[in-house]
């Protein structure tokens, strides 16, 4: 086991000595700060005014009445234009909160796609680059099985992706708190799931959403890792994975009428759809999606293993 730890240490050493690793981290940090400044400067992004003070219930009630009379009426708080949500807030005594660090963290969940991109680049490179550099020949003539070497690389890529995701979360929270303020960790978040309004603690809910995005990212990274292990080509692995990541949702929309559409990987990768909003295909359930993902995941890993350990390392 100590032996395995040494291998992971080697992989991390190689990862950290490549400029691209640092460039990606800097890009992510710059985008978070950039988004923060943009949101701060242009109030349109941060949803304008919020009914606050002791009479917020009365204000929301009035706004609901206005909307009842004329759904297109210009109201004082355009972001509270949903009558059901307003009613839910009034009934449950959940006062609206102004845009703050937590909202910034939620908004930056979109940047997890970028973390996914970086993880794909790392996942494809960690195997295929050894072939490109020719170093694979020196790596595989040590008294260590190929499976163990492959696993050490996989563990490194996953820990790297996790580190980037944690970095995105923490850095967004710090930047958000600095620019928009933060009132503790116990804020209540109101959201819609399958048409019903619910509320929960924002801290745990944001962690859940980032965690679910990490699962999606893991699947795509594992896919890139598999392509790299099979074809031993960095560009192919990165290109194919990014193409599928981008085109995935379009593929689903194109095939949504088909009976078997729900078995397609991309119908299931977004697990956030079961917690906020509604699933892309109505009869999908969380359990079903997790099962489908698990099957794909195991197949990806098995194929990586078979091709990496069985194939000859022939001339470059």
């Amino acid at each position, binding site marked *: 086991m100590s032996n395995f730890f*040494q291998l992971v240490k080697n992989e991390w*050493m*190689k990862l950290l000595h490549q400029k691209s690793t640092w460039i990606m981290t800097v890009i992510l940090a710059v985008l978070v700060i950039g988004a923060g400044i943009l949101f701060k400067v242009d109030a349109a992004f941060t949803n304008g005014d919020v009914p606050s003070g002791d009479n917020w219930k009365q204000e929301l009630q009035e706004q609901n009445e206005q909307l009842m009379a004329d759904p297109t009426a210009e109201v004082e708080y355009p972001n509270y234009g949903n009558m059901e949500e307003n009613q839910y807030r009034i009934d449950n005594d959940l006062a609206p909160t102004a845009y703050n660090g937590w909202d910034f963290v939620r908004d930056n969940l979109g940047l997890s796609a970028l973390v996914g991109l970086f993880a794909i680049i790392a996942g494809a490179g960690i195997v295929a680059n050894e072939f490109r*550099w*020719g*170093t694979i020949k020196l790596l595989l*003539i*040590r*008294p260590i099985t190929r499976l163990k070497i492959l696993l050490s690389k996989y563990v490194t890529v996953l820990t790297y992706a996790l580190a980037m995701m944690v970095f995105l979360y923490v850095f967004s929270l710090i930047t958000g708190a600095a620019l928009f303020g933060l009132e503790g960790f116990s804020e209540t978040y109101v959201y819609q799931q399958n048409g019903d309004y619910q509320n929960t603690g924002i801290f745990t809910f944001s962690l859940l959403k980032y965690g679910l995005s990490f699962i999606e990212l893991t699947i795509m990274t594992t896919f890139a890792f598999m392509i790299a292990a099979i074809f031993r080509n960095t560009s192919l692995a990165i290109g194919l994975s990014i193409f599928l990541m981008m085109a995935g949702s379009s593929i689903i929309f194109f095939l949504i009428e088909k009976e078997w559409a729900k078995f397609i990987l991309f119908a299931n990768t977004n697990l956030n759809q079961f917690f906020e909003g509604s699933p892309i295909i109505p009869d999908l359930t969380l359990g079903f999606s997790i099962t489908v993902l698990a099957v794909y995941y195991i197949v990806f890993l098995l194929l990586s293993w078979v091709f990496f350990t069985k194939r000859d*390392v022939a001339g470059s």
Partner: protein
Amino acid sequence: MSEAVMQLKNVKKTIGRKEIIKGLDFDIHAGEVFGFLGPNGAGKTTTIRMMVGLIEMTEGDVVIKGHSISREFKQAVRHVGAIVENPEMYPFLSGWKNLVHYARMMPGITEERIHEVVRLVGLENRIKEKAGKYSLGMRQRLGIAQALLHNPSVLILDEPTNGLDPSGIREIRAYIRKLAEEEGVAVIVSSHILSEMEMMCDRIGVIKNGELISIQMVHEAQQSEDVEVVFTASPVDQSAAALKELTGKDVEAGEETLTVQMTKEAIPDVVSGLVQKGIRIYGVNIHRSTLEDKFLDLIGEGAIE
């Protein structure tokens, strides 16, 4: 003869329908430098890749210190240090970190050992620099260093003098001889530079189209064997007759030189015989049949099928 450290037993490799390696059978012993010689495409690198388990054999086996490379990979490969083709290193890591990387992959390699290996290959002053800035010669040294980290019993070097300057070549050659003679390491060297092989190897295996066509001892005693001796003497006609009389062999006369096949032992007597007959001798040269001639004889024309 000493212990066979590596044995190739009827090693065959078929890719598609083409048989690339057609049954190699030979042993390599502790303390010898074995040269692996052949034209490009003869199957040298493929064989080396099979020796270290990078390529699977279609048939046969390679046994290293009693362990089969295909069935007991870990036990077999731990006795092997190798450079396969070019000495490729991680360009973004320093020479030192490249060595640390490989040291971590094998148990029991201390930092002291890494220092020792660096000194052996003479890279002390540049070891902290990135390997990407190294010249080919320095990469070759670093490659040898990584192959030696774990004190292997078999050292496999693919074209080890490639890219080295003449003094570097001499150093590496001396070092390879030292490893074999003093440490008892079996060294396998592949090369296409024949004179180079002749200077450092004990035995040379010649491979052609995937077959081992000959194994030659390099430093054979040649006392009783006929060598080609070239005399420069005048007058030529008189000399030719005298030579024929003294050696009893056919003499090939040129404009100023005379060539005769004779043993090395007989040269002094022949020279004094010629002197007694009043022939003026300007030079006597042994034209030794070099490995290159043997090699070309063996390989012939159109070496690659």
